[in-house]
């Protein structure tokens, strides 16, 4: 029964949930767009508005509980930001970028697939687009800058590489989450995930770079220089690579030998790599770098906290069930189209959340069409959520690293994202055939 204080509880049965959704979206829109509040705070207040309209005037427990939902990603992003700042301010990225430029500068078009694979690699082994964007992604930015690619395109290249790395085998967390909803072992996903990610990655690399690099007159832009301390200093390549090497080793070894190497978790891996990077770098002011990294990370962290509270209240009030039920209620023939729209849209708040909340019921609704292939296709659609505003995790982090406006990066990601959606739809539609082939 609705508590007495509930405004929406007085509506006819079935109206309260959609009305709650409208109240929360309207509150978020007004606070975020009209009053220009920080997105994270607007989401938190909108969550309170939805709860209050349903009689929960002081839903403190729910706001706090929901706000902690993404504690691990929050720590990953914060520590990865520190790692990135240390590489940048300590001169390591300059050294790496310079070395790559000297080695491959005369053959940029051949280099593009290799750079895309470099960006994707951490995502492939951790399942996290953040890990890609803020490690090898930042290195790739300097390489792409050296090739003459404008920074909004470079950042889009890196953001897409991060998302495609998250989709690519061997580790795809949304696929694991969706599969776990059906007790589907994480086995046999390699072929469908490779089909979904690598062709799109190749096309994306050339799509973003060709218009610029294809012109013979394209002149390389100056690579970004870190502020202050390292200007004019040279870091030997071997030392510059130490920090990234530690990060990669701490990600790869627990995968390769799980019984002998304990997984330190991404936050500790990034902190250890940042410490090594700081020691091996040129002299720089670590305090300034740490403060700047925190300042850059806070808006994204705030959004994730707000998103957590927002989803908690959606669930509490039944609005989440309303949305999921509406989607799953579609006729069987339309389910793939619904997935293609719904999963990325819900992924705007969290790709992993979208996989769990929508991916699992959609897989259940599509049972019997080669479950592994369908789960893989759905996981790719959920992963696109990392490109979707308001969080737009991958483009936002890539834009921050490149020092450009995130909406400029988002615009450049639209076509590659549509390409990935198209690939996922094809895989979902052809799931039975792909399942037979990949057996």
């Amino acid at each position, binding site marked *: *029964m609705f508590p007495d204080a509930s405004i929406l509880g007085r509506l006819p049965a079935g109206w309260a949930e959609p009305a709650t959704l409208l109240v929360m979206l309207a509150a978020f829109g007004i606070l975020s767009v009209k009053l220009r509040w920080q997105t994270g705070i607007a989401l938190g207040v909108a969550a309170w508005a939805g709860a209050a309209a349903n009689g929960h005037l002081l839903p403190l427990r729910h706001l706090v509980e929901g706000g902690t939902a993404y*504690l691990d990603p929050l720590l990953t992003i914060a520590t990865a930001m520190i790692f990135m700042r240390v590489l940048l301010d300590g001169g390591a990225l300059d050294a790496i970028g310079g070395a790559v430029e000297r080695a491959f500068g005369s053959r940029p078009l051949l280099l593009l697939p290799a750079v895309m694979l470099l960006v994707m690699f951490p995502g492939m082994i951790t399942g996290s687009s953040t890990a890609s964007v803020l490690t090898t992604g930042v290195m790739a930015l300097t390489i792409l800058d050296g090739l003459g690619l404008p920074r909004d395109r470079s950042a889009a290249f890196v953001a897409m590489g991060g998302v495609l790395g998250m989709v690519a085998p061997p*580790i795809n967390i949304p696929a694991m989450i969706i599969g776990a909803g059906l007790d589907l072992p994480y*086995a046999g996903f390699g072929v469908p995930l490779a089909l979904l990610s690598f062709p799109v990655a190749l096309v994306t690399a050339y799509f973003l770079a060709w218009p610029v690099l294809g012109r013979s007159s394209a002149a390389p832009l100056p690579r970004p220089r870190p502020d202050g301390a390292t200007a004019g200093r040279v870091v030997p390549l071997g030392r510059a690579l130490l920090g990234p090497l530690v990060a990669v080793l701490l990600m790869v070894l627990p995968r390769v030998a799980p019984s002998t190497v304990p997984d330190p978790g991404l936050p500790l891996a990034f902190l250890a790599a940042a410490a090594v990077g700081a020691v091996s770098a040129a002299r720089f002011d670590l305090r300034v770098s740490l403060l*700047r990294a925190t300042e850059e990370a806070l808006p994204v962290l705030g959004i994730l906290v707000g998103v957590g509270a927002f989803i*908690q209240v959606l669930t509490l009030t039944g609005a*989440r069930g*309303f949305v999921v*039920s509406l989607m799953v*209620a579609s006729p069987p023939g339309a389910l793939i189209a619904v997935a293609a729209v719904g999963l990325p849209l819900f992924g705007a708040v969290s790709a992993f959340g979208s996989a769990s909340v929508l991916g699992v019921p959609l897989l259940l609704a599509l049972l019997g069409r080669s479950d592994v292939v369908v789960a893989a296709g759905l996981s790719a659609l959920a992963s696109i959520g990392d490109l979707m505003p308001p969080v737009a995790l991958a483009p936002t982090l890539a834009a921050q690293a490149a020092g450009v406006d995130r909406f400029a990066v988002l615009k450049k990601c639209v076509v590659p994202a549509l390409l990935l959606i198209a690939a996922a739809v094809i895989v979902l539609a052809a799931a039975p055939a792909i399942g037979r082939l990949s057996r």
Partner: protein
Amino acid sequence: MGRLPSSVSRPGLIVVAVALAVSALSAGEFRAMGRSGEVRPGPGVTRVGRLSDTLPGLAGTPGDTPVYTLAAPAGTVPGGTALILGGTHGDEPAGYLAAVVLVETARVSTGKLIVIPRANASGFSYNVPQEAHPQRFEIATPRGPRSFTFGARATNPVHQWPDPQVYTHRGSGQALSGTETRNLNRAYPGRADGSLTEQIAFAITTLIRSEHVALAIDLHEAAPEYPVVNTIVAHERATELAALVNLELSGSAVTIGLEPSPKTLHGLSHREWGDSTDTLAVLMETANPAQGRLRGRTDAALVVSGRDRYFAAAARRGRLNVPFDDHGWPINLRVARHVAGVTQFLTDLGMLDETKAISVAGVPAYDEIVARGLGAYLR
């Protein structure tokens, strides 16, 4: 030297102050979770031990939990031993409450019953973020309402953290998403020196071996849209017994399915208990509307009444694997199914092998729980 960021501002300080105040004010609600004393041992309980009696390393940890023994009086026919596990997942209350009913009502005249109502006690100390589950729910009894904890599926991350990105099940090498590293029912047979969850799993597996448990039953619930629901999952060595139970229950009011334990899915109780011990391992599932993704408003009323408009609509469209009408799946019905299932398993175990017979009296029948309510049988 670079520019110091101007990160300290008045609005920023206000936001931090509000966040701290909200956290401090809500802290009491979180700390109140998971209190013990919800189980009131009945006249049949002959010993209340702890899981740490089996694995001393668990003593004093959030993974330690009461183990209730209901043994036949000395001098009677020895019989067999059965282990009943509730609360593997704290957000599946029918399994937990069915175990509570056994502890509070059963009297054993042949053999021995070992009951662990909160198999993963840590999972009863928090709720899963974004699931908005109630922290507690009440069951009406003739002596007034009794309050029970609604917990979470996995070990509390405060007790076991951080999760790896990928959970690799030791022994099989099976890869699962990192959060599954805290799922007791993916941790069997467990490790004495492993994570807290693996230690709990190891202690339970060791208990099965040391007590020569002939039959081990893991009581669960699942979302109504999940394919394995209202069913028994049986290890291949337990198939004959489970088929007999399935046949006899289906002849009564309790329609129940029977599924083989998948050989390719590792870490689950019915697979690993069966493979690594001599016990006959089975798991039972009922339909829990408070778990599904399609559910509407999430509160204590949903947990108890089991009624949900969205699930009813999904059933009409053929999207569920269980019947679901406006009456839903009330907790009385779900607990009654589990209790009836356990009783039938104990009966049929003795039919198949007299030396392993376990005679139990005092446990309410399915019809009695449905008619009078679960609370009528709680102390």
